């Protein structure tokens, strides 16, 4: 098993994804957060509450949660590129107990997702505090709370990486799997929120659970306001965290079980 983890690390470190992931984390964490904090949510179109309010801080942190599609896509690629480049057969020849291969990928990409989340959250913290200081705006939440929320977002990135691996193992086709993962996280959940009846599911979907982590209700509120429906009630943060962990476990289980009996042709 340790051989397999070592092999997966070598595989990850010798592709360009290795350099692209930390770069994406820096751009989205430091870059996007810094830009939003510098401009100020009150100057967005439509305007959102400013950084001096609690809702304003939670909002821009919540938006950071939506960048989870990046680690999710990386997880998906980790599995599907083996099928796309036809190395899956070679890999399963070296390791016929296929669940071990997927377990090694989960472990490796779990670490990669954690590194991604740490860079994302760390650079976002630096950017937000620096921008607030530069604009001389007192943040609407204590610094400790902001850091805690960012840490939650960072950890959520691990969950999304694992979900990506699960979807990749299930669908195997790289283009289809990427479209599903990115499409769902980018647009799918937002669309679901617009469907009456279905939108009550939002709090228990991965996006709703992620929003619950930071108590980011702005998007959901705006949506229900526009549709004239009753506001959606997000789960408490702890329940959101538990639910996300359950999603990660389910995805991991899926990833490990599904390839067992399938023919590799």
């Amino acid at each position: 098993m340790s051989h397999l983890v070592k092999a997966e690390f070598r595989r990850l470190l010798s592709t360009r994804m290795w350099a692209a992931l930390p770069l994406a984390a820096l751009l989205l964490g430091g870059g996007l957060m810094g830009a939003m904090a510098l401009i100020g949510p009150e100057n967005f179109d439509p305007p959102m509450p400013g950084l001096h309010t609690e809702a304003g801080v939670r909002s821009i942190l919540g938006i950071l949660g939506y960048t989870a599609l990046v680690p999710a896509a990386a997880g998906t690629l980790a599995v599907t590129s083996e099928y796309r480049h036809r190395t899956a057969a070679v890999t399963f020849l070296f390791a016929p107990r296929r669940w071990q291969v997927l377990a090694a990928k989960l472990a490796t990409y779990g670490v990669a997702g954690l590194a991604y989340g740490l860079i994302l959250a760390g650079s976002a913290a630096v950017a937000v505090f620096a921008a607030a200081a530069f604009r001389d705006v007192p943040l609407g939440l204590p610094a400790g709370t902001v850091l805690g929320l960012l840490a939650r977002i960072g950890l959520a990135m691990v969950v999304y990486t694992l979900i990506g691996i699960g979807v990749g193992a299930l669908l195997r086709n790289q283009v289809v799997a990427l479209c599903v993962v990115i499409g769902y996280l980018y647009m799918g959940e937002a669309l679901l929120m617009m469907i009456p009846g279905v939108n009550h599911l939002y709090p228990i979907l991965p996006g709703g659970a992620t929003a619950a982590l930071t108590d980011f209700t702005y998007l959901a509120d705006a949506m229900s306001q526009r549709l004239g429906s009753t506001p959606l009630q997000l789960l408490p943060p702890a329940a959101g965290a538990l639910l996300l962990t359950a999603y990660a476990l389910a995805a991991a289980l899926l990833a490990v079980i599904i390839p067992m009996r399938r023919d590799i042709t």
Partner: protein
Amino acid sequence: MSGDRQTIDISHLTKRYGEVTAVRDLTFTVEPGVVTGFLGPNGAGKTTTMRMLTGLVSPTSGTATIGGRPYRRLPRPSRTVGAVFDASACHPGHTARDHLRVYAAMGGYPDSRVTALLDLLGLAEAADRRTRGFSTGMRQRLNLATALLGDPRVLLLDEPSNGLDPEGMRWLRGFLRQLADQGRTVLVSSHVLSEVQQLVDDVIVIRRGELVAAGPWSRLAGASAVLVSSPDADQLATALLASGEPSIEVVQAGRLRVRGLDAPGVADLAAAHGLRVHELVTETSSLEQLFLDLTTDKAVSP
């Protein structure tokens, strides 16, 4: 490990994909110490059989074992079996060295093995180039290097001549011969008989997933024969017999089937004795004929 001889046993192996039966009740053995050709037209079930042997495809029924064990039960499979099924199996963003190092780690082999195989397969100069720029032949060699990482006792190659130039094919022949001489088990599939006839000792021929022939090449191929039509057939037969080597069969009046001497040999002998020859035909060997029937006669009912 060097004295370890592994026999491949395929027993009543069947694979059905819905309505289609890709492999039907197939039984044969592959012996160590020889190169065995696994022959049949495209779509005969060669690849499916080799993938069932290595656990990539689950059989509908029947068993396939290596040294008495199914592939998935081998303690360290890459040490026992090396297989190349897909010449292009490599990530385009990886260099040849990256690719080999990933699988060296997976099998628990040292990096020195990676360097040794890059040298052995003539990839040393291309070792640090990304495989996206590789030719088919280079990828083929990279995949062969991957299969050889564990110095396996059994080597399985699916259509290795695809993408290899004549020089590469000659090298491969010598290399596989060397492996077989070391007592290893070598199974090479091909849909082109002429590509492997200089290479193989034993052959297994399948068609539509069923066994057609199996055994040593020399027995299955039969000695090639020359058909001679001559108004002087009797004198020619006497002359041929006097020359020692050939055996002669009288097909009909004025027609002889000669074995042990080729067409130019027969013609020269006839000329030397001043005998007339009206027709001289080299008969294809029985295996060649069998293979030709398999590949050309698509109307044969299963």
